[in-house]
């Protein structure tokens, strides 16, 4: 599909401090792209460049083939949902939604029709005359979406739209937002710092690491085929061990002369690595399993912590060699303090190894 939004080599710095370095990215028509990143990663700045509240130092932004880089926000026709909603407190729900339509000089009769149309879309029919302070946080959120959708924007931008909601409300609103955007068939760019939210709503996820793109792809790709140790550790639960590459796909960890202190495991190489190189191996908890202490090719240790999250039980194992591994196990597994061995699970997602960067294993 032809790209609808094209970001070309965007750079932005504030007061000499680079915030975004060389961002290039495309979004297809009708796609929901999530910008994921920790605070300070530049995701909000990137969204503000796209919306026009900031201008890039270098680079271009194209939407539908038209360059909008220097266009002021009011002439871009992008809908925006703000983190704190930014509903106009001195207007009713309907006035808020009508605001963008009046900017387009839409006739009054049509405005009314469009307002009730979008209110219906966000399941708030009959709330038009309420004051925005009189409705709940979740409803305010949907009004903010309705207001952004009303003028038929070319592109919808959402800045951490759920961060102001209670956790239980967040999941429901997330689904409603996603459905509403899908129904209209709009292209959307959604900023969040929550990986679960990103995976749930995004067709593709762009992970930002201190101002540059770490990886862009569908959620399963980011989870199963992370392109760097950073991505692997940021997305989902993971633990990291240091090792040495013996042969292609064979990693030696620890000292194999002592039983339980070293193993040789198979792993997927995410980069071109040469035999003898030091690597870091990233394990998903479901790639590992607990075994009796006398097992072969296992790392010995003892249970340090047991975390029950409802859908699974996680065991934090303190290895005899000093590091820790997070292992997904059974509900009726060993107790804290019990000696165990950790082995590779045969059906789990394979561990991935990356060239060793300096820094401790965690």
């Amino acid at each position: 599909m032809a790209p609808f939004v094209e970001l070309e080599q965007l750079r932005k710095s504030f007061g000499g401090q680079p915030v975004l370095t060389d961002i290039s990215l495309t979004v297809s028509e009708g796609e929901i792209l999530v910008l994921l990143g920790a605070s300070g990663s530049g995701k909000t700045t990137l969204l503000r460049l796209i919306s026009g509240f900031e201008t890039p130092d270098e680079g271009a932004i194209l939407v539908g083939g038209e360059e909008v880089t220097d266009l002021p926000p009011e002439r871009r026709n992008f809908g925006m949902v703000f983190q704190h909603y930014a509903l106009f407190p001195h207007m009713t729900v309907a006035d808020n939604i009508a605001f963008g339509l009046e900017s387009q000089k839409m006739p009054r009769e049509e405005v009314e029709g469009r307002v009730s149309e979008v209110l219906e879309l966000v399941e708030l029919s009959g709330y038009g005359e309420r004051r925005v302070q009189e409705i709940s946080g979740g409803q305010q959120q949907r009004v903010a979406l309705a207001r952004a959708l009303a003028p038929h924007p070319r592109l919808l931008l959402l800045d951490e739209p759920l961060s102001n909601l209670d956790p239980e409300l967040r999941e429901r609103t997330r689904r409603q937002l996603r459905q509403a955007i899908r129904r209209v068939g709009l292209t959307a760019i959604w900023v969040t710092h929550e990986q679960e939210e990103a995976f749930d709503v995004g067709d593709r996820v762009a992970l930002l690491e201190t101002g540059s793109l770490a990886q862009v792809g569908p959620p399963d790709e980011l989870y199963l085929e992370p392109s760097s140790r950073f991505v692997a550790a940021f997305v989902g639960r993971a633990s990291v061990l240091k090792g040495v590459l013996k042969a292609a796909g064979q990693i030696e960890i620890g000292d194999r002369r002592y039983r339980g202190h070293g193993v040789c495991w198979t792993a997927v190489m995410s980069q071109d690595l040469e035999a003898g190189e030091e690597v870091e191996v990233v394990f998903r908890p479901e790639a590992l399993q607990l075994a009796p202490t006398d097992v072969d090719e296992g790392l010995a240790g003892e249970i340090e912590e047991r975390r029950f999250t409802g859908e699974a039980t996680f065991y934090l194992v303190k290895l005899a060699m000093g590091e820790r591994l997070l292992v997904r196990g059974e509900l009726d597994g060993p107790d804290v303090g019990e000696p165990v061995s950790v082995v590779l699970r045969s059906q789990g997602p394979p561990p991935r190894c990356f060239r060793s960067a300096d820094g401790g294993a965690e």
Partner: protein
Amino acid sequence: MASRTIRAGWIMVAFLIWLVGYPLLITLWEATGLPGDFTLQHFVEFGRRADEWRALWQSLWISMASMVLAAAIGVPMAFLFERTDFPGRQILGSLIALPVALPPLVGVIAFLFLYGESGFVARGIQRLFGLASAPWRLSGPGAILLVHAYSMYVYFYLFTRAALARLDSSLLEAAASLGAWRWRTLRTVTLPVLAPALAGAALLTFMTSLASFSAPYIFGGGFRVMTTQIVASKLNGEIAMAQVETVTLAALAFVGLWAMRRVDSGSTAVVGGVRGLAPVRRQLRRPLARWGVATLGWVLALVLLLPHFTLLLISFVPPGTWTVEIVPPVLDGSNYVTLLSSPERLRPVLNSLWMAAVATVGAIALGLATARLSIRGGGRLGRVLETLISVPWALPGTVFAIALATTFAVNLPLAGRMVLVGTPWLLPLAYLVRSLPLTGRSSLAGLRQFDSSLEEAAASLGAGWWRRLRRILLPLLRPAVMAGASLAFITALGDFVTSIVLYTFDTRPISIEILSSLRLQETGVAAVYGVLLMLVSGTAFVIWGRDQRI
């Protein structure tokens, strides 16, 4: 976009310097004999004259004494109204803050009618003891101090009340739990926490008193302070001397402003750390104490409000009917009829109204624009703009009057000077400059609380800057802007201090007409003007007070 803001900000800085700072520099420039030969002769002359030193000294000690007296009234009142509860506390509590909103001249003539030699009190005492003449003349430093204490206690009252309301009750409880008695708590906890507020009120009183003109002018007689000395020099045609005096007074005020900023920055550190529940008001259990405190509160409030009632009463006394009686024998509306039916007497009212309105609208626009540029520009630009907009507030009105009269008496367009003296535009300009701190600071306060994402939301919905201003910014800033505007309007409407230097016959404002009515012995008409000012000011003050709470 950002660089455009910065550029507009520095253009505004240049404009404000022209409006606020330049006239002062021109005054200094001309006081040193320039553009002719540079000379310090006028300053030497100033230093040589004993009466100049006396005026300077009298300005200083009157201001000190006013500060002490105002504190002596205001602080106990604040404790009484904030820490105890009695019937009528709330309504009295806000009523006694009213004098702050009244034009100083109105307070002065109200005092004259109440405590002056032919006022109610003097008449009563004269009759009571069968004296041949009035027991006193209301003049000299005593009279000035009386008026100052009466009108300036409000600063101490309001500041102390606000600080007491913010006082964290856990501090008091902590002191009590550590075994401190009430006096010790007051001395070691309450007062130190109040210190920044008290220092702020003290400086404000000092500066207001230093700038005070109405009371020294009406009651001073031969007793001159700097402000009255300046006006006297100007009227005597000693322009250079008036300029030197103006420069001296301005320097004094700048020292005050500098001290104020220091106190300001200190107080935020102290108050910023205090957060929690305000202490509960002491419910007085014993009926005797309860009624005692209530009576005290009512009597104090009555004494403080009595001058205004007097003014109202005098406005209903027909001319020539009140001679030797203690209370006026006849009351009717003839003074109001006289004023309303004579175009010549209505003229000053209309003058004041249009000039104050024009000045207020200008001050709102300029104040809002400056505040916005200050906040969007931030950093050094923001601080420079904020300081510039505060300068007129710290400078006595007399200083500005002389500075504007000096600057706008010649036509030198290239030097940024034009002839405005003698035109109807000088007074509104002077009012505007003096109102700028009020509208500017309230706009700043409003904009600081304004969520900028609201404006971004409007922009993302396709609204251009004009629609954003009209539909989003102005409606949401209205409370803050209205608060500043209403204070600006009353200040301009009742202005006496700049008017007396700058008015022409055609633009004479209410205050000047009050003065000439008094000279013509038309006390009733003067009182009607006073009542008019009081009503408009009171209304504006109520608007201000209501919006303060939003």
